């Protein structure tokens, strides 16, 4: 806890009655078809965290195999299964659902709504996702094992591995991802409608927190791009199980078409993950620097601009294929554009921190750590957007290092930051600072040790997705593997902290961080009925610091 001068509350602060419980009273609530957005959010977050641990174990098995140049821990086939399922679980069962859970929990609180627009659809969405997730995990126990053709599942490889067998790992994998996609579309319909329709009076577009902007952009992207993947996977499902020739070259089909459709969704999905995390950074950094977010409107528009840019960059995943020259040039240029809104955000966060008094609580440590890591990820990202560099390091660990700097070092850091920041809203208690800092130290050092050497290895020519490698590359691989085990261990202080703090942590009160935002006017834990009366918003967001210095005129009706 830090000593911060209290700020005028955003609205009338609601006190929890002594007899009034939080929204979460019995663990059995997690097993029900519950229409409360907070319970659905908790269901999403808790289940996806369990899947995260499973995906992390698979990653540690991969790194254990790569400790030595020889093949000595798993079979080659199982190694393929390992990296396929590690990727699939981390993407479809951890990052997306956890962010959906967070959005479910926070979004109505942030815009002053009682619930999402379609609560039943929301609950249905979780159980569809959960069925798909269980299917994916069960596929390990099919006779032929789980899917082993990569999370991108390119034909013809993916079609060969379980042809005509409805219960092959690949076939079940496809069903699972399709179910997850249906759940995501339900969620996206819900969130976009909620943001457009349910905002409290006075919560204009340019008074919404950046997290809400990010959710709006990300969920709109899901609506536009996800059906393309769904259709693509349906075509692949027919190819795999019923022998249609959509992606079969021998019969006139086109496997490159699969890749185009796949990346047309799967590039935008990266922004679906990272934009809410940028939103989290934009919430946390102003709160712990006591400064208004620098350039709020520009940051909001930069967030929205991702939805446009992202529709025109997907071919950069296919530079090394049989891609025509004009296409390479065009998509090199559009990919470079991504750096502009990203740069705007980094600039805004830096300027927010500039000349401020930093309060380095655990949430802030994770947020700043994530921003620094994202800077490194962005630098390698711009490098990879250049066709010559991309062709040079194509299919090496350089690419693996780059995208893990994005997905683990930035996104997972941001998710942890969010957990430490909003934990009181779920449990009513703060997480322990000491254990949190241990967690941060392990995580930061572990992430750097694991993923930075991958860049060096990639430049030296270490190929990805291969279980054995040249002996002269072993040194950095050992560093990377040890880092991965440290990263694995770093979860333990977090779990202990979360469980113990849930029961015995310091009681937080309504607004432990003295943060602005409607969710902090509510009691912690949030009661089942959140807003007794619809709040009226009269302030701009991030109204920290000197109350005389406001971003724009508060009497402005817009």
């Amino acid at each position, binding site marked *: 806890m830090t000593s911060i001068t209290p700020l005028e509350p955003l609205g009338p602060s609601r006190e929890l009655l002594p007899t009034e419980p939080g929204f979460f009273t019995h663990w059995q609530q997690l097993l029900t078809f519950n229409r409360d957005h907070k319970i659905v959010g908790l269901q999403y977050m808790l289940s996806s965290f369990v899947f995260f641990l499973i995906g992390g174990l698979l990653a540690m098995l991969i790194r254990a195999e790569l400790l030595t140049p020889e093949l000595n821990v798993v079979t080659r086939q199982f190694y393929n299964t390992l990296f396929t399922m590690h990727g699939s679980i981390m993407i479809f069962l951890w990052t997306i659902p956890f962010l959906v859970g967070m959005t479910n929990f926070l979004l109505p609180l942030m815009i002053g709504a*009682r619930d999402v627009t379609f609560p039943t659809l929301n609950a249905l969405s979780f159980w569809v996702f959960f069925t798909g997730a269980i299917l994916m995990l069960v596929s390990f126990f099919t006779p032929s094992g789980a899917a082993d053709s990569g999370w991108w599942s390119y034909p013809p490889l993916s079609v060969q591995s379980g042809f005509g067998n409805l219960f092959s790992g690949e076939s079940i994998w496809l069903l699972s991802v399709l179910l997850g996609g249906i759940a995501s579309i339900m969620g996206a319909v819900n969130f976009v409608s909620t943001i457009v*329709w349910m*905002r409290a009076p006075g919560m204009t577009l340019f008074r919404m927190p950046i997290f809400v902007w990010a959710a709006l952009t990300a969920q709109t992207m899901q*609506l536009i791009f996800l059906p393309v993947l769904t259709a693509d996977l349906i075509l692949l499902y027919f190819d795999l199980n019923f022998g*249609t020739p959509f992606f079969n070259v021998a019969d006139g089909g086109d496997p490159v078409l699969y890749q185009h459709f796949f990346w047309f969704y799967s590039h935008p999905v990266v922004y679906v993950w990272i934009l809410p995390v940028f939103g989290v950074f934009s919430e946390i950094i102003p709160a712990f620097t006591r400064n208004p977010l620098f350039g709020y409107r520009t940051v909001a528009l930069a967030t929205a601009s991702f939805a446009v840019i992202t529709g025109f960059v997907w071919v950069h995943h296919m530079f090394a294929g049989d891609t025509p020259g004009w296409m390479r040039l065009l998509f090199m240029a559009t990919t470079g554009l991504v750096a502009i809104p990203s740069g705007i955000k980094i600039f805004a966060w830096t300027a927010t921190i500039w000349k401020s008094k930093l309060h380095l609580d655990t949430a802030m440590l994770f947020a700043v750590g994530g921003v620094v890591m994202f800077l490194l990820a962005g630098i390698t990202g711009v490098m990879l957007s250049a066709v010559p560099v991309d062709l040079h390091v194509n299919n090496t660990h350089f690419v693996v290092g780059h995208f893990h700097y994005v997905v683990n070092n930035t996104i997972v850091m941001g998710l942890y930051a969010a957990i430490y920041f909003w934990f009181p809203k779920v449990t009513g208690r703060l997480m322990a600072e000491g254990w949190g800092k241990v967690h941060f130290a392990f995580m930061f050092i572990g992430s750097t040790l694991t993923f930075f050497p991958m860049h060096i290895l990639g430049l030296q020519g270490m190929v990805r997705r291969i279980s054995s490698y040249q002996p002269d590359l072993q040194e950095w691989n050992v560093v990377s593997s040890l880092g991965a085990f440290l990263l694995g261990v770093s979860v333990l202080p977090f779990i202990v902290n979360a469980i113990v703090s849930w029961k015995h942590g310091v009681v937080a009160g309504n607004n432990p961080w003295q943060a602005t935002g409607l969710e902090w006017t509510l009691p912690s834990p949030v009661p089942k009925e959140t807003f007794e009366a619809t709040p009226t918003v009269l302030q701009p967001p991030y109204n920290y610091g000197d109350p005389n210095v406001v971003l724009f005129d508060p009497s402005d009706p817009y």
Partner: protein
Amino acid sequence: MATPLTQKHPSRFYTDESPVGLNRWHRHLPRWLGRFFPTGGGLQTDHEGQGLFGFGIFLGSETMLFGTLILTYVILRIANAEDWFPAGVLGPQRTPAVILHSIVLISSSFVIFAAERALGRGNVKWFRILLVITALMGAFFLVGEVQEWNTLDFGFHTGLIGATFYLVTGTHGLHVIVGITLMMIMLWRSFRPGNYDKGHFGVTAVSIFWHFVDVIWILLFTLFYIW
């Protein structure tokens, strides 16, 4: 001509305001966007508006799904222009039966429109009659389509033509079945007392869905039977 800078505008909404005026664009653009996203707790109880909005953006998603399937067909057909139809296969034909059931499906859009109008006037009896007629017309289309599939000279496994034709028209047929099911639900609901107290969003949504299905069929008819 240019308005004097001192002029006081009577309204909050500046009809001639450009969203991207170079001068102070960072204030103009938000104002302009804000017109489309009004706030207010009053909207929280607008079930009809919320429902139609959610359903509308879902249909946008559906459009992308159909778009991808149709694009697959178009790209593969252009890539295999010479040998699209295997030897001895004529492909889908514009027989009188096909034209008949297509016309029936497309004209059913007008019938469901009339049904919705009847409900809007509070005439539940005519609403039910017209809804049943729409559903029957949809069922006629489905029966006709299945009969046509039985007489075609290619099957699901006849190369790309078979795979694309049956997958795309099958997906459309599935949507017709869903539409008829939704109409039956609307019919059942119309017998519940107090069903239309909050407006008739469900009927409007089914009607929009049915128009969507018909527009898709016009597109498919053009691409499969005329191309």
